[in-house]
């Protein structure tokens, strides 16, 4: 047992894990966090707390994760390499671990020129793979990067990484994931899956590399709210592939029924993804749509969550 | 186009073999640019309009020896006409013209469109083959 977190217990026990995602408020008001926590408690095993998503300033991921702990929900703290250099990252990890945060997701982070602070000085001191290796070194050897004196106290971490099977160059993506697993990733949350065939192909390559045993893979799921949102994601968000069949279905659905259609498509995808060997769970990214997550999980037949 | 120069100088005497190799290499440089050099030097109408565009010329108080066409004609023109067989002092003069009086900043204006920097660069490469470098 590496961290004793609820997510790790579920995955070790072999259950089909479910995680959700929560965007911290763009301010200091803790009320929205509490409201979302109530919605998600008991429905999912852990909740991702984004770290200044798409480079837009939000409450920090550690603070919001600590608030979630207070409401009895297990957070997965996202850590980007965009904003902090290696000193800040390691001190944040130690701080979060002290606050009781067990899960950490190491991602590169969206480029700052896409957010509301394009003038910021970029950091990117280390990249996501090196962050995974750094977190493992802190947990296993209790050593800060490039130093030999041990940190005091345990650093229980369940290290997660992101994987994007749908971004070019496609042939390299499986090996890249295997590289991150070798770096020390314990679980992975992929980019949202719409093209299940492409995802299956990627999973097949990952299985051939034997990376799916050491690192639990959670397929990313985004319920589509409307056709306009689907088209926006295809055109602007890099690395997302939505097959035409889903797009036409979303376009056909009338305005008020579009949301229901989206959730319907979402549950179909979940059912198909469950059949793929090596997928250990799903990660539902319903930002600003948290109130629909219980319905999605229930429809996918994944309730009640194992204790 | 490696025509012509291959059979040059394989005598056994060390001194002359070395110079033969140098001459062969100079010949190869000239051979590669032969057409461009002859075409450019023939096309040059000696109008000296390129002088004003050269800051070395302007900065040196308009000394004609800094005008790009003068540099080109007196470096590569001379080397080409004598097929690289210049005396040591002439090569020193060529090297001082090609290096000290020219920054090779590629900005000389030629109304006819001759690429003067390539000519001077060619002269520099011949000097380098000859083992002559800026002081």
């Amino acid at each position, binding site marked *: 047992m590496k961290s004793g977190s609820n997510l790790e217990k579920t995955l070790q026990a072999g259950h089909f894990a479910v995680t959700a995602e929560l965007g911290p408020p763009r301010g200091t008001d803790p009320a929205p966090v509490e409201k979302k926590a109530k919605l998600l408690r008991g429905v999912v095993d852990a909740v991702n707390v984004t770290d200044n998503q798409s480079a837009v300033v939000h409450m920090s991921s550690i603070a919001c994760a600590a608030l979630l702990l207070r409401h009895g929900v297990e957070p997965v703290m996202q850590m980007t390499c965009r904003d902090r250099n290696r000193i800040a990252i390691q001190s944040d990890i130690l701080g979060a671990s002290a606050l009781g945060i067990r899960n950490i997701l190491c991602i590169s982070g969206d480029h700052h020129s896409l957010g509301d602070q394009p003038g910021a000085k970029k950091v990117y001191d280390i990249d996501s793979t*090196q962050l995974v290796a750094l977190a493992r070194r802190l947990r296993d050897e209790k050593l800060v990067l490039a130093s030999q004196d041990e940190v005091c106290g345990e650093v229980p971490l369940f290290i997660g990484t992101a994987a994007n099977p749908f971004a070019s*160059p496609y042939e390299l993506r499986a090996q890249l994931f295997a590289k991150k697993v070798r770096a020390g990733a314990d679980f992975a949350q992929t980019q949202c899956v719409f093209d299940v065939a492409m995802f299956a192909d990627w999973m097949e390559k990952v299985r051939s590399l034997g990376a799916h045993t050491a690192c639990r893979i959670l397929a990313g799921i985004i319920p589509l709210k409307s056709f306009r949102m689907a088209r926006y994601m295809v055109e602007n968000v890099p690395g997302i592939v939505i097959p035409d069949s889903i797009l036409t279905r979303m376009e056909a659905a009338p305005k008020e029924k579009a949301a229901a259609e989206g959730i319907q498509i979402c549950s179909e995808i979940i059912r198909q993804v469950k059949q793929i060997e090596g997928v250990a769970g799903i990660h539902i990214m319903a930002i600003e749509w948290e109130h629909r997550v219980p319905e999605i999980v229930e429809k996918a037949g994944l309730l009640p969550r194992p204790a | 186009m490696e025509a012509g120069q291959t059979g040059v100088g394989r005598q056994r005497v060390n001194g002359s073999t070395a110079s033969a190799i140098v001459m062969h290499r100079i010949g190869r440089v000239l051979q590669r640019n032969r057409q461009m050099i002859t075409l450019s030097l023939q096309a040059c109408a000696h109008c000296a309009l390129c002088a004003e565009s050269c800051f070395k010329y302007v900065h040196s108080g308009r000394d004609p020896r800094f005008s790009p066409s003068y540099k080109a004609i007196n470096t590569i023109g001379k080397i080409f006409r004598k097929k690289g067989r210049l005396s040591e002092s002439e090569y020193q003069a060529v090297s001082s013209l090609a290096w000290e009086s020219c920054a090779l900043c590629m900005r000389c204006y030629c109304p006819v469109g001759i690429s003067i920097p390539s000519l001077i660069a060619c002269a520099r490469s011949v000097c380098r083959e000859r083992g002559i470098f800026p002081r």
Partner: protein
Amino acid sequence: MITAAQKPREEIFAMIRSYREAQRPRDFLQCLTVGCGGCASICMAGGQREILGLNEQLTEMARSAKVPVRFSSVTVERQCNPQFLEDIEDMVRDSDCLLSCACGAGAQHLGDRYADKPVFPALNTLFLGVDVDTGLYEERCRACKSCVLGQTAGICPLTRCSKGVLNGPCGGTRADGTCEVGNGIPCAWSSIYERMKNQGRLAEILEIKPPMDWREKGQGVLVQAGFEARYGRAGRG
């Protein structure tokens, strides 16, 4: 070579004008525009031709703004070489302020040499680049002082990848192989992957690269081997 581009003329004139008001020198301010025949000339930002155009423009602006400023110009071979800055000593003596049309290094060197007179930069130094074509330059190197080109088939991830990632492409590559930052910037890692694949060095991409060592990145001082004796041991570290 170092690539630079001219600052907007208004910005240059504003610098000189604010100095003019502050100083109130005799009847007019004599500003010497110092061009550079090296990289600034090659990238068409600070060569003789540009500083003449610049002087004409600034003179017009000065006349229309009724600010008594006169512009003279000289181009030295390289502003980063002390020998060439000596040539213009008398002209600097006769001028009140200097407008340097060289890269950042040249402007500072001019400023260090003639410290009693203000030196205004006329160019924004952009990057270390290659001249792809006449007038078209692309960035290639950020001078990070520990080159990794050996591991990435000659494409610098620090410069040409907007996130400077050292381990393989990030998740943000678009379908056509360009970067998430947009406006068609190619993803450096996609091209690195292509090249490594063609060169049969794919395994090297899959090795985990340790974080970059950013030590020795302060003010760089280079003492070439064999010259320590001349300039004393470079001990400051």
